[in-house]
């Protein structure tokens, strides 16, 4: 029903565009000069069609359910029902009206369901009537108003401006919303667990929080020594460090090769090939690390007499490093290529060789951009989840031995939030606290990285 109505409104929009343009052409044919191109007259009418439709649709979406519910529940007022019971009754009759109700059908519910259906159909048809008449009225009004000297271009431009503004506002508001939910949950968490214990505690064992009986009163002392985040912060930075040990040298050198040494032909094929690495889903890297690299390292270690965990930090970090190579290589290739050719010429003309030129002129000139690309890579390494969950184990060991398993912030969030969760439980909120710390770290890294990159750009443009 709504879909048909919507299609019809869209068609109406096109029709009003057509009529608006036609009127403009008619005006033009009388040798009068228009204030805008004929299309603008069309867009103008189409907007007059879209705005009332949008307003009425949103009003309906907001108020219809509330009003219907009020009307239905008014039958039961003064009968001594509790609010919860009323809500349940309403949900039951709604389900029955859709034929999805499986419980016992009482006459009350049946009556309500019927009433619900009839109210809905009244609401629907009145919506159709109101929307269509509003559209026709507004388009007709606008159609009469437009003349050779009416302004159509400015309102159309303003409308576009408003639409684009709304789109960016939606993106920003979502971000703000997410950040706020993080902040509030984190604050709740720190009401139970002292900040000091979280930041400096060395024992992370959230599973302990599972054993609590829900009827028990919350006793903060039982959480002491449960949410000490040091091991997982350490694990996160340790794995990211291993990843960067792989990614920085390989990425940087391949970036330099692509930018300075590779012939156009090699570059043409090699660059997309490297960038394919960036297109591989992280879950694929994850099982590559868990099923291929991890066992391989374990066997290799055993043959050398070393004790290697099958889920070692080395396997996870190494594979993560491979994942980050294309970011560093491609970004540093870009910054190196954007170093002006005149600097290369200047250096070559002094008799410098290619490697001298790269080492002494190009690399220093591109350094800020390269640092920026590395920082972006680090923030990816810290935020990476799938590889760590699959390949590095879930027990939060405080260790600096790459052959043992460790855990990271992201992996712990996954562990905490898999399965049934109780909201308001410190264990669930611990995920928010971890998320918050992760967010702060990557935010800082990104800000620094973007600043550095921007500074570099300003220098040459």
């Amino acid at each position, binding site marked *: 029903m709504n879909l048909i109505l919507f299609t019809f409104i869209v068609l109406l929009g096109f029709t009003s565009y057509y009529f608006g343009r036609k009127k403009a052409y008619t005006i033009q044919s009388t040798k009068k000069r228009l204030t805008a191109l004929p299309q603008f007259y069309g867009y103008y009418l189409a907007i007059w069609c879209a705005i009332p439709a949008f307003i009425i649709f949103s009003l309906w979406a907001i108020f219809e359910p509330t009003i219907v519910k009020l009307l239905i529940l008014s039958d039961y007022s003064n009968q001594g029902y509790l609010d919860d019971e009323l809500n349940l009754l309403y949900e039951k009759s709604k389900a029955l009206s859709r034929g999805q109700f499986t419980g016992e059908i009482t006459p009350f519910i049946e009556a309500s369901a019927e009433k619900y259906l009839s109210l809905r159909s009244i609401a629907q048809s009145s919506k159709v009537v109101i929307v269509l008449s509003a559209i026709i009225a507004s388009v007709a009004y606008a159609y009469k108003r437009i003349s050779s000297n009416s302004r159509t271009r400015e309102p159309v431009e303003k409308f576009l401006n408003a639409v684009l503004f709304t789109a960016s506002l939606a993106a920003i508001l979502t971000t703000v919303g997410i950040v706020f939910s993080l902040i509030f949950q984190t604050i709740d968490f720190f009401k139970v667990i002292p900040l000091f214990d979280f930041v400096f505690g060395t024992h992370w064992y959230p599973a302990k929080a599972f054993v609590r009986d829900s009827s028990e009163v919350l006793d903060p002392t039982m959480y002491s020594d449960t949410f000490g985040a040091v091991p997982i912060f350490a694990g996160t930075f340790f794995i990211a460090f291993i990843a960067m040990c792989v990614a920085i040298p390989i990425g940087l050198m391949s970036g330099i090769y692509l930018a300075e040494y590779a012939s156009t032909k090699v570059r043409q094929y090699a660059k997309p090939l490297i960038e394919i690495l960036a297109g591989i889903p992280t879950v694929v890297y994850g099982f590559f690390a868990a099923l291929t690299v991890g066992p391989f390292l374990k066997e290799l270690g055993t043959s050398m007499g070393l004790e290697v965990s099958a889920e070692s930090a080395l396997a996870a970090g190494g594979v993560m490093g491979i994942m980050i190579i294309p970011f560093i290589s491609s970004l540093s290739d870009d910054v190196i290529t954007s170093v002006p050719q005149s600097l290369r010429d200047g250096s*070559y*003309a*002094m*008799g410098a060789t290619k490697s001298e030129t790269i080492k002494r*002129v190009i690399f220093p*000139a591109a350094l800020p951009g390269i640092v920026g690309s590395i920082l972006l890579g680090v923030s990816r390494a810290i935020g990476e989840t799938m590889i760590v969950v699959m390949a590095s184990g879930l027990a939060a060991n405080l260790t600096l031995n790459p052959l043992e398993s460790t855990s990271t912030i992201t992996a712990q969030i996954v562990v905490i939030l898999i399965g049934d969760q109780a909201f308001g439980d410190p264990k669930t909120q611990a995920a928010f606290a971890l998320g918050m710390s992760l967010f702060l770290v990557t935010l800082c890294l990104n800000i620094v990285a973007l600043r550095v990159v921007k500074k570099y750009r300003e220098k040459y443009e």
Partner: protein
Amino acid sequence: MIKIKAKDVDVFYGKKQALFNISLDIEENQVTALIGPSGCGKSTFLRCLNRMNDVIDICSVKGEILINDFNINDKSCDVVRLREKIGMVFQKPNPFPKTLYENVSYGPTIHGMAQSKQEMDEIVETSLKKAALWDEVKDRLHEPGTGLSGGQQQRLCIARAISVRPEVILMDEPCSALDPIATAQIEELIDELKKEHTIIIVTHSMAQAARVSQNTGFFHLGQLIEHGSTDKIFKNPDNKKTQDYITGRFG
């Protein structure tokens, strides 16, 4: 005395021929100006002289270029040594994003010309003095070279070029990005430099060619139309095209 002798030089960009059969002698310790309309190949010819065309993948050079009777297009030619002997100054000032000191010491460093810090300081000072920049920058040698004005940057590039004591300095429209005052300073400098170096300058300004050069070559559509002493080219050219270009009838 003849310093550079070009014989039948052809240059190709891919399949397109940019220079046809150029033969030109360049005299030692004189300024030779190369003039001609845009795209006529004068910069391409200039870049042949220190093999800068090697940097461009699709560019190929044929023919002989003898510098001190040695063919630089020969396989045995070491480009690093060649470019040490033949300095170059570009159209747009291109100081490295380093300090003034590092800009000038760049060449001597990569060619291992100074044994001690003291020697390097001396090289930097003499080069900057010769480039008439010393008095303006002596107190800020360790500030970035990119912070100078356009004319100062170009003189810094000249200082950089002469720091390795090249025999020849190639200048590719060195004043086209500069204002008249800076241009006058550079021209004065060129006159000074020719005592110790052979200078070849590509320029679009006929007045500049007339002011600074002793010899002039006129290029048109990849051909060297006429060359000879600047006096003769400007006052009494043999070729009608040269006459037309000099008097501003085309180009």
